């Protein structure tokens, strides 16, 4: 035949015997006149021509070609319905040197798997997708496919496909060609020898592109299904050439490697660096147990007041002193409504519940938090309130109240941001739960900006001084709202 190479032997990319098949190991499970056999042959020959067989991984779909792994002597992975592009993505990324092919039918790719194919194409995955479109579900017995033609009678479109009910046939090549990342998209047909030769070139080209790291390619192959269409194989092939090709025009929809911008470089780290094993605040060499005390603290206020950070600093300080610590934030919708709180436990024993319903100490950074949480403080506990005095008519009869105008003090220091450190210092001074050195060490280790660190030192001193000079030892809150 002019211009055609006649091949008389089976490609070595096929097994000699189809042992996985069980019975009839010399023939395929495909029906006489089915297009899958031809597509398999074209792929196998392309793999041999390109010398790719050993490196190839075939991803088989759900559909008639679910058993493609019976035939191809390559690495085989059979996957869930429609998900071949997702599995292929991960296979390829796991082994970039491999050649990964996803083999899918029209139901698999164009119905249940539309998300997966669109996104694999859009990511420009360096894989080759062979999409066999015969306009009908074969394996499940002839149901409508997204590519069924208008008026096509199937078991689930018994009156013929209607635009008003099922929409129009889905054009996958055209759809994917709207994306910028795919490299190669072509639609071919198996209706005659000339088109089969074109299909062969397209299959080979797709694999060649992948071999050269060229990116995503998809070849849609219009294919006959004589059994479901209830046609003689020759008639079915003719039907592909007339009806299918008319609805799905053949041609190249994309054929250039996209010029994608190089992304930022990702820093390379050792496992030790990634796990930050050397970066944490060092624990002191010999902690003195009587310099620390067990405490449960609830810190509450507005988002933006450094509520959560204050709790973390306190937990870090406890950790440095070899204590057991836990920090539990409020999270979820509350965080969006503008209020925030967290629970911190400092303990010399293993900590049970990190949730503190009745704290020993409440740090209320705003009035709302004071009103909401002060009643829950344990009898004999402590409330630190960010103000000069309690709101009129409000008292906390069961606990000592210390009013520390932390925000005012912070403003005077030059930054409202350090109000949380002022309050933290007040807590340490008032409760003596942790030594000052630990607080300073934690701030030094966590605050990288030297200006801010200096401010934090000042805030720490100011908070301590305020409690030291302004608050009387042993004072308790009085019903009129003042601390004496």
């Amino acid at each position, binding site marked *: 035949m002019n211009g055609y190479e006649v091949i008389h032997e089976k490609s070595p990319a096929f097994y000699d015997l189809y042992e996985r098949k*069980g019975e009839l190991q010399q023939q395929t499970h495909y029906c006489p006149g089915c297009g899958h056999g031809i597509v398999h042959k074209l792929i196998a020959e392309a793999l041999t021509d390109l010398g790719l067989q*050993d*490196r190839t*991984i075939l*991803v088989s779909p759900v559909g008639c070609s*679910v058993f493609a*792994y019976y035939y191809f*002597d390559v*690495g*085989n*992975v*059979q*996957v*869930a319905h429609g*998900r071949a592009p*997702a*599995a292929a*993505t*991960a*296979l390829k990324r*796991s*082994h970039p040197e*491999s*050649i*990964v092919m996803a083999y899918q039918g029209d139901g698999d790719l164009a119905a249940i798997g539309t*998300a*997966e194919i669109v*996104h694999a194409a859009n990511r420009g995955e360096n894989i080759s997708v062979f999409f066999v479109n015969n306009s009908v579900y074969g394996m499940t017995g002839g149901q409508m496919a997204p590519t069924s033609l208008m008026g096509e009678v199937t078991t689930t479109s018994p009156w013929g496909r209607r635009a008003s009910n099922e929409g129009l046939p889905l054009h996958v090549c055209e759809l994917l060609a709207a994306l910028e990342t795919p490299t190669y998209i072509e639609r071919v047909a198996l209706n005659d020898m000339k088109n089969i030769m074109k299909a062969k070139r397209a299959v080979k080209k797709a694999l060649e592109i992948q071999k050269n790291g060229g990116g995503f390619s998809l070849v849609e192959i219009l294919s006959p299904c004589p059994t479901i269409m209830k046609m003689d194989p020759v008639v079915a092939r003719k039907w592909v050439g007339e009806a299918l090709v008319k609805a799905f025009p053949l041609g190249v929809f994309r054929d250039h490697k996209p010029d994608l911008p190089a992304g930022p470089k*990702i820093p*390379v780290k*050792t*496992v*030790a*660096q*990634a796990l*930050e*094993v*050397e970066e*944490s605040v060092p*624990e002191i060499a010999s902690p003195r147990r009587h310099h620390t005390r067990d405490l449960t603290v609830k810190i509450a206020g507005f988002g933006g007041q450094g509520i959560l950070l204050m709790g*973390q600093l306190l*937990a*870090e300080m406890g*950790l440095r002193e070899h204590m*057991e*610590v*836990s*920090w*539990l*934030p409020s999270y*979820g*919708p509350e965080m969006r409504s503008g209020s925030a709180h967290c629970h911190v436990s400092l303990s010399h024993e*293993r*900590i*049970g*519940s*990190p*949730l503190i*319903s*009745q704290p020993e100490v409440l740090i209320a950074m705003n009035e709302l938090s004071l009103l909401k949480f002060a009643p829950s403080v344990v009898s004999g506990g402590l409330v630190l309130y960010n103000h000069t005095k309690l709101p009129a008519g409000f008292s906390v009869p069961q606990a000592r109240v210390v009013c520390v105008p932390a925000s005012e003090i912070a403003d005077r220091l030059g930054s409202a941001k350090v109000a949380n450190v002022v309050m933290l210092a007040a807590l340490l001074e008032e409760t003596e739960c942790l030594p000052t050195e630990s607080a300073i060490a934690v701030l030094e280790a966590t605050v990288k900006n030297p200006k801010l660190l200096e401010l934090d030192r000042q805030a720490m001193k100011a908070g301590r001084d305020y409690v030291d000079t302004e608050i009387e030892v042993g004072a308790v809150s009085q019903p009129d709202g003042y601390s004496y």
Partner: protein
Amino acid sequence: MRQLCKGNVAIVKGAVLAGCRSFYGYPITPASEIAEYAALLIPEVGGTFLQAESEVSAINMVYGASSAGMRVMSASSGPGLSLMQEGISYIAGAELPCVIVDVVRGGPGLGNIAPEQSDYFCVVKGGGHGCYRNLVLAPSSVQEMFDLTVLAFDLADRYRNPVVIMTDGYVGQMMEPLDIQLRKIEAPEKDWAVKGTAETKKNLITSIFLEPDVLEAHVNKLEAKYQLAQELETRCEEYLTEDADVLLVGFGIVSRVLRSTVDQLRAQGLKAGLFRPIMLWPFPSRELRKAVQHVKSVMVVELNTGMMLEDVKLALNGTVPVEFYGRTGGNVPAAEEITAQVFARMSALV
């Protein structure tokens, strides 16, 4: 050296130490932090992080990466876990190892993002189709989030099966000291994987077995693994159970609250103890039966309407009365609340 670490972060760190270099996920509160941290860390140590187009894609990417022999993980929450069920069934059916984290949120449906333990049936009983099991770990501290993640990869490879770490927003968001013992962890050689090489060309990953006898043999093979896991892999922790009259049973964040409850009850003169399953499947039935030998009553506490309760009742088989206290909607009972519940049921309990 200890570091203050968040639970969700500890999971990613555990995965990195365990040699996981593949993470495929999809954002969902309250699990997104795991994906976010994986997005940062996994590429830095030379791995692949990919945000998939859905949980359905993510779990099938996990399937692909596991087929390729990688240590791979994903993380999600309730609705996302529901979407993953088909894929998890395929993974179990194809005998692929993987680790999936479920940071359980309130359900059913969209529910809310607060902590619940209402995915117990979905995760522990296997929400997907077919005869398979997930191995399920339930950490209750940041250190366990790390340690059990390392263990999860080991178990996944040993049993060639999905391992689920079932946790909640509290343990995920919590910060506690984390002690990382740096060590080299080698994943076992996976000669069954498909790697795109001449040596692995003969391999096939599949879960389809058309012949009834072949499928039955496959199911029996899986079942034999699960029987072995039931023999070898039960894990639990007990606290003051030896002289306990009342045994509290709870897992995850609830077990932390129950530990405080036990202290409170004992301070008030009631001999209480805590039984905490660390593995939810295989369930530590043997250990529980042993723990209740001198116990007068058991009270199960969960953030659901009574799911693990069924396993406790199955294990005890009517030998000890079993009470239940559950909260849902994101309400996590304080120790005081449970203490009050125990005293309210004292006549039934003791």
